């Protein structure tokens, strides 16, 4: 009986203690970093090689396909991609398929452009948000200027010097989607399937696990998965950011969760054993 009560307590746990344990595990390495080494995955290397392979001066397309809810995972990726491209002299056309992505794109873009001394209109431009992501992605395969008659600030797109000679995916060596949703898949289906665009995707962890089939077939040329993916990319370009800074906390927190699963299941097994023992000896 005593053992049953004890195992029941073990199996139930006190929520407040569990919450506190999580908070402490995450906070501790943020205040006192451990600087654990970071291994770079094959998918992240492929992603990096794609940007590395773009000739300086050419224009790539970067789509901010996320909103503030997943900023923590995806902002470090967008920033690292922009830093990498700008540093290499690759020009970047930026857009978003979410209205909530406008403010994020503007902030990240401003930071990366200022750091590298890039000018609006020649080195980069922001097309802003367009309603209806599927029609937008498809329309851009026919004509960028048709899809976006003006940029986000109302300048006619035809007049941007960045876009001279650039009007479809055929003129763009690489499309980068940083996405919190199935958008990365829709880029593959529409920009890739119909217009043969070359695509790499940065994804939230939740989305990343779903797109392995597209990596294997080559429909996606590279992928960054979650905050870990961002950290890997930061290491590849040799400039640490929020991704690398978060990895210690991420490591410890994962071990804590695994510990919780093991302890919880231990309690569950003991409880089940105790229940069986009771049944066996009434």
């Amino acid at each position, binding site marked *: 009986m005593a053992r049953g009560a004890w195992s029941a307590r073990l199996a139930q746990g006190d929520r407040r203690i569990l*919450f506190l344990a*999580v*908070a402490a595990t*995450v*906070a501790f390495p*943020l*205040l006192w970093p451990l600087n654990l080494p970071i291994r770079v995955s094959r998918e992240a290397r492929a992603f990096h090689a794609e940007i590395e392979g773009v000739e300086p001066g050419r224009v790539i397309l970067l789509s901010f396909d996320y909103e503030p*809810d*997943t*900023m*923590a*995972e995806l902002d470090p990726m967008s920033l690292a991609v922009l830093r990498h491209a700008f540093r290499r002299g690759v020009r970047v056309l930026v857009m978003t398929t979410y*209205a*909530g992505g*406008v*403010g994020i794109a503007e902030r990240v873009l401003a930071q990366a452009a200022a750091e590298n001394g890039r000018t609006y209109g020649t080195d980069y431009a922001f097309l*802003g*948000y*367009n*309603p209806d992501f*599927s*029609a937008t992605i*498809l329309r851009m395969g026919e004509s960028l200027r048709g899809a*976006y*008659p*003006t940029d986000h600030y*109302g300048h*006619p797109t035809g007049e941007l010097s960045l876009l001279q000679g650039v009007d479809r995916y055929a003129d763009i060596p690489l499309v980068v989607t940083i996405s919190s949703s199935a958008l990365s898949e829709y880029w*593959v*289906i*529409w920009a*890739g*399937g*119909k217009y043969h665009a070359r695509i790499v995707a940065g994804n*939230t*962890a*939740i989305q*990343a*696990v*779903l797109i392995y*089939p597209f990596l*294997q*077939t080559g*429909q996606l040329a590279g992928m960054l*998965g*979650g*905050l*870990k993916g961002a950290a890997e990319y930061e290491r590849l370009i040799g400039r640490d950011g*929020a991704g690398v*800074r*978060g990895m210690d*906390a*991420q490591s410890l*927190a*994962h071990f804590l*969760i695994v510990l919780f699963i093991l302890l919880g299941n231990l309690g569950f097994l003991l409880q089940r054993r105790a229940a069986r023992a009771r049944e066996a000896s009434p």
Partner: protein
Amino acid sequence: MSAADLGVVVAALLTLAVFSFLYRDNPFYRFAESLLVGVSAGYYVVHYFDAGVVRKFWVPVVQQGQLWLLPGGVLGLLMLARLHPRGQWISRFAIAFYVAAWSGYLIPSVLQERILRQVAGTFLPAAGTTSVGALLAAVLVLLGVAAILVYFYFSAEHRGLLGAASRVGILFLMVGFGASFGYTVMGRLSLLIGRFQFLLQDLPASLRHISH
């Protein structure tokens, strides 16, 4: 105090209001959530109007004379008929247009990119062209995909060979869900790390700024 510093303090208070849900559902949380719904809808609608009506319609039609966009405007107006109960049927034209257009381009693209190419990607490579490990992996993927198709096949009882295949299928599904499980946990923790970075790093910096 700069607007940005004030902003960080406001953001911190609202962050704590949302975290208060951990204790239990309470008025601070409810306030924050209701405010979020309103403010975000307001943020969106300004961009919807700017991008959808001004930049996508008004500028090209009125300023650039692209009159072929007019039917889009008409369909948009039909959509507005929804606001009146007796106008519901008029808006059906706009809805039918929208949904059918999407359906039209969805069909071949999905069949080609999500089905045919995925099937092609599952075919085994020629014997001897890849390493033993890669061939083994390819065989496992083929086995898994085929077994899952059987698992989700509802036109026959799952007995005999079909039963065995579907039991294999569910095992593959479970490992796949396990991977999703791990990645979902990872994602949620990353978001928490983001908020803690804000509370432990950005906020103190702003507070120091203010107190100086």
